[in-house]
């Protein structure tokens, strides 16, 4: 009998290890290199810098760093030196919340860029709101973050005054793709799959609603675990459902193998998804099976915007090893929005920040509401919910191993 109780114990320990291994953290101590005589303003950054989503996270970090560097070189705000403090959230909501608490505790932090994931963003909102610290996300797209849980019924209320974002929401990203696929590609039958996370389920939901409203048919639905790699059984279901394409609400670590396995199962149909599939990693993982797959993303293609050309040039000149990826331009604009808010406050306060940190944070958060400039991704500004005023969206398709712009426009409901 002894070894049987050992088995039970082992199972319990495994479950414990599962939980523990999910919250390991690695902090990079940022160097205190700035300073001089002027004030130092720290801009916090939270993104997945390691793990499966690190390709997107590193792009966010590098781009925000580039914004900080540029502001320092140009002396964008006289007497103020900016510094970036990047923290790794490993794409975990719990870690994001801890990072938020850490950033709030540092009195020099006057604004935060990030995070990547909507569920992480959700966990951070209240921590920042309690400290009056402004947060600008380059990538969160779940509508509830700015418009409250009841946004779908039309009852929109802004839950947190300190939360801003420069990306558009899934409330228009999903429907935008639905309209294009139904009207332009003439695809009528879809198999909808999501990963049950805040971002994925929300996106798949808004997509399916619009697609059915247009007259399309949802021939099947399924859910997957975001850590899973084996989708053979689902791929067989997709193949036998006769769907014209798959819509996947989720991120590329599961999305890429899913798309590949659907094609391998013999269904020669594209997989379509949101901005979290718009990554070079997606193509690297799905390889030749990624051909023809589509992803929507917020804003216009960076290669087509004049404002973005300088950013791309500077990013290349800075010699970063990793690409700026889907959210680089947004991350740059997020950091720049904070820098602009700091500038406003400094100019209104006789050339320096209010001495009291709480007061300074509050003033900067208020100034954020009126920030307006031509950024990398187009015009940057925030509406009464903290959402971007820029409603541009684009669709990309994988051709010869690369995402190429397919169409771009403003969403009309």
């Amino acid at each position, binding site marked *: 009998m002894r070894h049987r109780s050992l088995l039970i114990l082992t199972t319990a320990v495994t479950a414990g*290890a*599962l939980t523990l*291994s999910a919250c390991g953290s690695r902090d990079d101590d940022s160097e205190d290199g700035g300073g001089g005589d002027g004030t130092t303003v720290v801009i916090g950054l939270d993104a997945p810098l390691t793990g*499966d989503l690190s390709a997107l996270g590193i792009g966010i970090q590098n781009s925000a760093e580039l914004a900080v560097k540029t502001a320092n070189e140009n002396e964008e705000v006289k007497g103020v030196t900016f510094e970036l403090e990047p923290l790794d959230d490993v794409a975990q909501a719990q870690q994001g919340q801890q990072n938020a608490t850490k950033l709030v505790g540092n009195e020099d932090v006057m604004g935060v860029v990030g995070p990547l994931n909507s569920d992480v963003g959700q966990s951070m909102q209240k921590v920042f709101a309690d400290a009056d610290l402004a947060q600008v996300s380059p990538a969160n797209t779940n509508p509830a973050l700015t418009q409250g849980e009841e946004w779908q019924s039309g009852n929109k209320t802004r839950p947190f005054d300190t939360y801003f974002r420069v990306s558009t929401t899934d409330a228009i990203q999903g429907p935008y793709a639905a309209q294009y696929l139904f009207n332009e590609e003439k695809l009528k039958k879809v198999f909808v799959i999501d990963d049950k996370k805040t971002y994925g389920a929300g996106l798949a939901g808004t997509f399916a609603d619009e697609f059915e409203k247009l007259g399309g048919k949802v021939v099947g639905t*399924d859910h997957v*675990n975001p850590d899973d790699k084996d989708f*053979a*059984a689902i791929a067989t279901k997709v193949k036998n459902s006769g769907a014209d394409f798959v819509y996947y609400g989720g991120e590329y670590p599961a999305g890429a193998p899913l798309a590949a396995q659907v094609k391998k199962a*013999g269904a020669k149909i594209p997989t379509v998804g949101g901005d979290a599939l718009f990554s070079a990693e997606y193509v690297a993982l799905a390889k030749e099976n990624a051909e023809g797959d589509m992803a929507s993303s917020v804003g216009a293609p960076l290669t087509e915007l004049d404002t973005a050309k300088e950013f791309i040039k500077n990013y290349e000149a800075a010699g970063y090893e990793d690409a700026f990826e889907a959210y680089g331009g947004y991350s740059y604009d997020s950091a720049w929005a904070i820098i602009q808010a700091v500038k406003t406050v400094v100019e209104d306060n006789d050339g320096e920040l209010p001495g009291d940190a709480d007061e300074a944070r509050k003033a900067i958060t208020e100034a954020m509401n009126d920030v307006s400039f031509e950024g990398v991704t187009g015009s940057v500004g925030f509406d009464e919910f903290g959402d971007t005023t820029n409603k541009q969206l684009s669709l990309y398709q994988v051709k010869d191993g690369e995402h190429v712009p397919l169409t771009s426009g403003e969403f009309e409901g």
Partner: protein
Amino acid sequence: MNDLPQQLANGLLLGALYGLIAIGYTMVYGIVQLINFAHGEIFMIGGFGALTMWLWMPNGTSLLVALPLMILMAVICSVLVGVGAERFAYRPLRGAPRLAPLITAIGLSIALQQAIWAWYPEATKSRPFPEFSGPRIDFGAFTIERGELYLLIAAPVCMIALGFFVSKTRTGRAMQATSQDPDTAKLMGINTDRIIVMAFAIGAAFAAIAAIAHGLRYGEVNFKMGFIAGLKAFTAAVLGGIGNIYGAMIGGVVLGLSEAMATAYIADIPGMEQLGGGAWKDVWAFVLLILVLLLRPQGLLGERVADRA
């Protein structure tokens, strides 16, 4: 139900993969009664060993040519880590209470994972693994990928070879004796230390072979892949009767099939729409495990390799 043959094939292939990894759990448990929780990481390291070999090859090498070398490299890496773990993490604790080596195993598992994470270039994200291209192979009722042919051949060949080894060779019989009663086996002149190392090595080699199957099937390896795979293989080993070599394979196949069936059909049962699909397959797999343990606590084929093999 027209996709039943295909779903059975999906489940069978997944099950064969689980079964190959589960053999490592079962052999080690059968001989030293240790649940080697680092076994999933030994599997993962095999995958990275094979990937390293592939990256060393000149560009444009055919995968068919590279595969034997990749298998060799994977087996070498896994066996070195497996045997090293036995020598440095478990042997010093051989006389200690059973909980001690178990904790070491969990620690070792995390350490190995983090080592790959930290030192293997770009291993912080999934690394693409080479795949066989070309159309799927048609068997009439179902089709499989070219890469899965490897698994289809490797699993039975490994099983038959192991069965032959355990029942027909001197070392294999010594292994059975050690498993049955290590002290008496020692008195009979069997070098039990060597036998234990042997069990670790064979388990690791099978895990390495499974790791290549994983890479060919999913087109990627990553530093976390050992955790879930190890958990599933452990489940398969318990399901089949831990310590029983054939039980590990049967347990793996039962687990793989039940996952595929749960994904494919549970949602079609009236009233079960919310409990079906891909996100629930693990739940059903573990429900099955609990049922088996309740009704037949020794597992499907019964425990301990020695009495049965």
